[in-house]
């Protein structure tokens, strides 16, 4: 748990946080600063995204048309406005001769303007409205598919993938994807249309002025490239020293007790200063260089503005261009930069999106659990005999941990699994529950291979109380009812009584309705264990799997747990990961595990007389206390 959280937090340094990120409302960010994550297969990922869009493609095409239309209307605006200025100018020239401005023509132009803007606004909003829906539907669908996928993946997958990794796919990666769909695609189209449209307008107004204006573009391009190159170096350095600094902060704060008890505060501050200094020096440089962008582009833009005013003015004097068109032209040059810089950032956004999509689709395409049996065995209840026949198993194929294991368990027997921590005691449990499939051999329950049951069918016969108590953020009642979702309130309370939990639950402020908080730390470890026992009692299993370890539980609670477990085991086949001598002694069969393998089996007396691993274990552990 704690390592997961750490991972997540670490990732946060480098990834935009959800919600406030680029996706929603933030625009596209400046192009090219900082390293961009690159996908492995750019085309393939986008192909997958497009295929995934499915029927939405029609809607997206429609909104694309709207976006183009709205941009075209927007591009027409300055030009039309220019004709109005010209009208006024003409009227002005007529004034010495008693003439005046032709207001009905100006009025007509204004009406056209109003219509242009009105349609522009409507198209633009409808486009945004629909795309918001599309991207939300896709986000919703993707997340649900990931959620479904989690339940179909084998545990093998989660052995090699951290929870933080899966979580970041659910949140960050899907968010990046939906952000690009929501805003990016529309903006991409609009920018492209705007660039082409503005260019056409400019050329038709004056090819000469267009030439002048276009000289600005490469100039800004070269400057931009130069700055980006320079600043990228510093941005990477900044990222690096920020990572080091944050790493130091995190380590020192989580190890505060160590630092204090060994008097390491001073050394810690000194190390901090080194990183902080580095961060300062590359930080301000990176920001200065990236901050240069705006003034320089502004300056180049102003130069262009001056050039156009002067040349345009000269042309107007000679009558080869009208005043209104100069005005329109100035507006076009002012507008041109924005879509161009957005287009410049497109590559980075597309790559980022492809990288995110790659991770999401890779997860969705992971190999799933083997399919269920075609004609599954199904029983309401089973007797509870279990046979292990020549079991061979390894978490990966190369290194088997169980080489050859045979055992026969009669209904109602008690089996104790003993061994050191890390000896692999839970491996047997995981095989029985079919969390993992054996490499070879067969496990039979009531005479049928467990692979001939459906997984849920098989597991419905088992009840499991593990040391790692899993409770969720909900009321106590909900947590107990988890064992059988259809149970009534009275059944829940009976189960709690049988689990010796009723008493302490009643002492809580809201009794059964008390909320277990997110960290599940408002009840004690022992109480948690009792709740999980109650949950298992409620599920009324035929075969039990119990983990007896009661570390971090005070002696009295431990007695309660012991009693509850004894209640539970009555009349059922039970597998107990045993720690208590009384359990081990009274077991019908003891499986002794060492380094992942079952090295001995038999009952207490036979094993003790074997003088093997068990007897050594037994003597080393018990002489101390029983002396």
């Amino acid at each position: 748990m704690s390592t997961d959280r750490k991972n997540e937090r670490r990732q946060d340094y480098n990834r935009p946080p959800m919600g406030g990120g680029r996706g929603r409302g933030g625009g596209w960010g400046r192009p090219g600063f900082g390293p961009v994550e690159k996908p492995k297969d750019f085309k393939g990922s986008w192909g997958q995204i497009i295929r995934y869009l499915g029927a939405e493609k029609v809607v997206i095409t429609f909104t694309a048309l709207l976006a183009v239309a709205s941009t075209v209307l927007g591009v027409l605006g300055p030009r039309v406005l220019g004709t109005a200025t010209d009208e006024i100018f003409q009227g002005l020239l007529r004034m010495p001769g008693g003439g005046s401005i032709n207001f009905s023509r100006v009025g007509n132009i204004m009406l056209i303007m109003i219509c242009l803007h009105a349609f522009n606004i409507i198209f633009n909003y409808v486009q945004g409205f629909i795309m918001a829906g599309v991207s939300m539907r896709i986000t919703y669908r993707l997340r649900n598919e990931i959620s479904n996928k989690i339940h179909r993946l084998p545990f093998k997958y989660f052995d090699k993938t951290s929870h933080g990794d899966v979580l970041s796919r659910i949140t960050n990666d899907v968010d990046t994807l939906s952000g690009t769909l929501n805003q990016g695609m529309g903006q991409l189209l609009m920018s492209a249309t705007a660039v082409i449209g503005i260019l056409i307008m400019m050329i038709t107004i004056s090819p000469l002025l267009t030439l002048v204006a276009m000289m600005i573009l490469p100039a800004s391009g070269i400057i931009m490239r130069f700055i980006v190159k320079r600043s990228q170096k510093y941005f990477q350095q900044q990222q690096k020293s920020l990572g080091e600094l944050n790493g130091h902060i995190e380590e020192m704060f989580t190890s505060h007790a160590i630092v204090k008890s060994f008097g390491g505060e001073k050394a810690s501050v000194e190390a901090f200063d080194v990183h902080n200094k580095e961060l300062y020096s590359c930080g301000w440089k990176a920001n200065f260089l990236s901050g240069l962008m705006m003034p320089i582009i502004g300056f180049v833009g102003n130069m262009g503005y001056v050039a156009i005013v002067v040349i345009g003015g000269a042309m107007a004097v000679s009558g080869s261009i009208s005043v209104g068109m100069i005005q329109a032209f100035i507006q076009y040059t002012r507008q041109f930069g924005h879509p161009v810089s957005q287009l410049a950032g497109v590559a980075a956004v597309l790559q980022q999106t492809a990288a995110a999509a790659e991770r999401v689709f890779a997860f969705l395409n992971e190999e799933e659990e083997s399919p269920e049996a075609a004609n599954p065995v199904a029983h309401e209840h089973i007797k509870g005999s279990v046979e292990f026949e020549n079991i061979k198993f390894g978490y990966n194929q190369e290194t088997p941990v169980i080489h050859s294991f045979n055992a026969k368990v009669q209904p109602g027997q008690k089996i104790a699994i003993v061994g050191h921590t890390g000896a692999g005691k839970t491996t047997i449990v995981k095989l029985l529950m079919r969390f993992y499939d054996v490499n070879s051999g067969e496990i039979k329950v009531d005479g049928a291979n467990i692979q001939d049951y459906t997984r849920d069918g098989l597991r419905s016969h088992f009840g499991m109380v593990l040391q790692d108590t899993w409770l969720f953020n909900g009321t106590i009642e909900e947590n107990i009812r988890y064992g059988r979702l259809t149970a009534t309130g009275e059944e829940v309370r009976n189960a709690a009584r049988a689990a010796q939990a009723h008493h302490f639950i009643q002492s809580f402020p809201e009794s059964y309705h008390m909320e277990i908080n997110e960290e599940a730390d408002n009840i004690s470890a022992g109480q948690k264990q009792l709740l999980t026992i109650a949950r298992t009692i409620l599920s009324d299993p035929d075969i039990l799997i119990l983990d007896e370890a009661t570390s971090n539980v005070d002696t009295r609670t431990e007695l309660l747990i012991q009693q509850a477990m004894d209640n539970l085991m009555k009349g059922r086949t039970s597998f107990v990961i045993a720690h208590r001598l009384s359990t081990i002694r009274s077991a019908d069969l003891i499986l002794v595990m060492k380094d992942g393998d079952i090295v001995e089996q038999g009952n207490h007396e036979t094993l003790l007389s074997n003088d093997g691993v068990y007897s050594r274990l037994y003597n080393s552990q018990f002489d101390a206390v029983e002396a």
Partner: protein
Amino acid sequence: MRKLMKYLKPYWPGVLLIVLLLLGQARAELMLPNLMADIVNDGVVYAAEHGVYRTEFILRTGGIMLFFALLAGTASITAGYISPRIAAGVARTIRRDVFTKVESFSQAEFDKFSSASLITRCTNDVAQVQMLANIFARTLLYAPILGLGAIFMAVNRAVHMSWIIALAVIVLVGTVALVTVIVMPKFKLIQELVDKLNKVSREILHGLMVIRAFGTRGHEVKRFDKTNHDLASMSLFVGRVMAVTGPAITLVMGGTQVLVIWIGAHHVADSGLTIGDMMAFMQYSMQVIISFMMISFVMVMVPRAQVSAARIAEVLSTEVSIVDPATPQEFDKNNPGKGEVVFQDVCFKYPNAEANALDGISFTAKPGQTTAIIGATGAGKTTIAQLILRFYDVSEGKITVDCLNIKDVRQAELRRKIGYVPQKGQLLSGSIESNILYGKYATEGAVPAMPKKQWGGGEQRRGKPDEVSGSVGRNLAPTENSGEHYKQHRETPAAPQPTDETLLQAAKIAQAMEFIEEKDDKFLSEISQGGTNVSGGQRQRLSIARALAINPEIILFDDSFSALDFQTDANLRRALREHTAQATVIVIAQRVGTIMNAEEIIVLDKGKIVGRGNHQQLLETCPEYKEIAVSQNMANGQGEVQ
């Protein structure tokens, strides 16, 4: 926010300069439309009316425009050179102050904030403030200057049309305000829903085994779907409201243009306005609108930074509950104490707790003896360790070490005497050597606490004059009488010289040599943060070695043997007895097996001492002890790695 303003103080000349530069930039930039109007009025219109070409006038005006453009660019670049330095400088100082402050915190302050929260405050929150400082000059300061300047210029050109600008600004600000008011609280909700989605997902991932065991997949899918659905529909709503902003800006800009032309045309007809002025007015009003847009976009970031600033200020203004005394007493240097620890009627209550965690605790841990403390979880065992280390101060009674109240000596003095082995065997990133010698180096302040790669190429780091106090070298050749040397340095802590002997000795006693020798890089093998790349047992042995390496007078084990197998545990305790015969050993344990040979065992129950004596005595006299002993069993390792 205001509290952090003082960090700007040292930079006031820079800030003043920036303001002046921005004023200059705005002034220069706003001259351009004005001059354009001149070209139109006195060049183009003049030519059309009088048939005289004033090319020279146009070129001259163009030259002036170029000059102003250059001026604006220079001012803006200069301001852009100064402001990131100030922003980064302010952030650096804040970050350092926060970090130093937190390093001085005692455990009580850590409990109050939680270390995760302190990390965020020192990293993300400072970054937020720095970001705001960065955009401050670029936008927050400049946009209003430019906007106000543009209004001034526009009104100067055509005062009777100024209402158009007012209208545009009102509509713009109104729309932005409306969208913000609708969307902002929803943003918060979205963040909460994202957290919830994360929480549900995390719960599912952690509980996968239980979910599959109970076959409740459908239930979990539904649970996820509900949160997912809530999040999607909330995001959809926000997305659709936010989609208003783009068209709204088009509306304001387009509307302004139409109004300027329509109204302007009438004024031109009345000869109240020249056509050049009308064009200039239009450009100024666009500039006003853009300024206000920039301001409102940036304003969205301000509340976030404000929250961060408040969180930082909270850390900085927290009073540290444990501070060194003004006139500290000193342990007798010439006659080094033996490390006797005495609790006298100690009561302790955690801050904000209702009941005492420890109540009337009195005992003496004598040098050369092992004093064990045993009890169930929650009995207050670890609290005793934390009190000895003075991570908390006692509420009542007193603790003395070598007859001095630990409140009367400097914390560093006290802790230098104690070799503390924490429960989890927490290690720091670096090498095996840097971890074992951490206590040595740390107190000398010579080597950064996070050596990482520096152990390979860190000589230059150590060589920096401002970091070296006293010469430290791990490559010092072991002198022949290194054992002697070792002892001497204990007695004269002013010039400690850790030698390889210290390292080897500590590792040997801690039974760590065996696995260290197996590693390729031996003592220089890398240790990742928290020591996650070595096993739990190895971690514990290394942290025992770390405590031994400072040759402590008091060794404090907080349940430190739980991950060791029986053989190692026994060897270790034998070696400890041999090599630390003079030291005061305090062992906190849950397992009876670990402490049954201690000279004195103290049994704690719910913060009170319920029994003391040796193992045999307690079995007979103390029912709580017997209960623990009887219930203990094969629980080896207390469920470390499953």
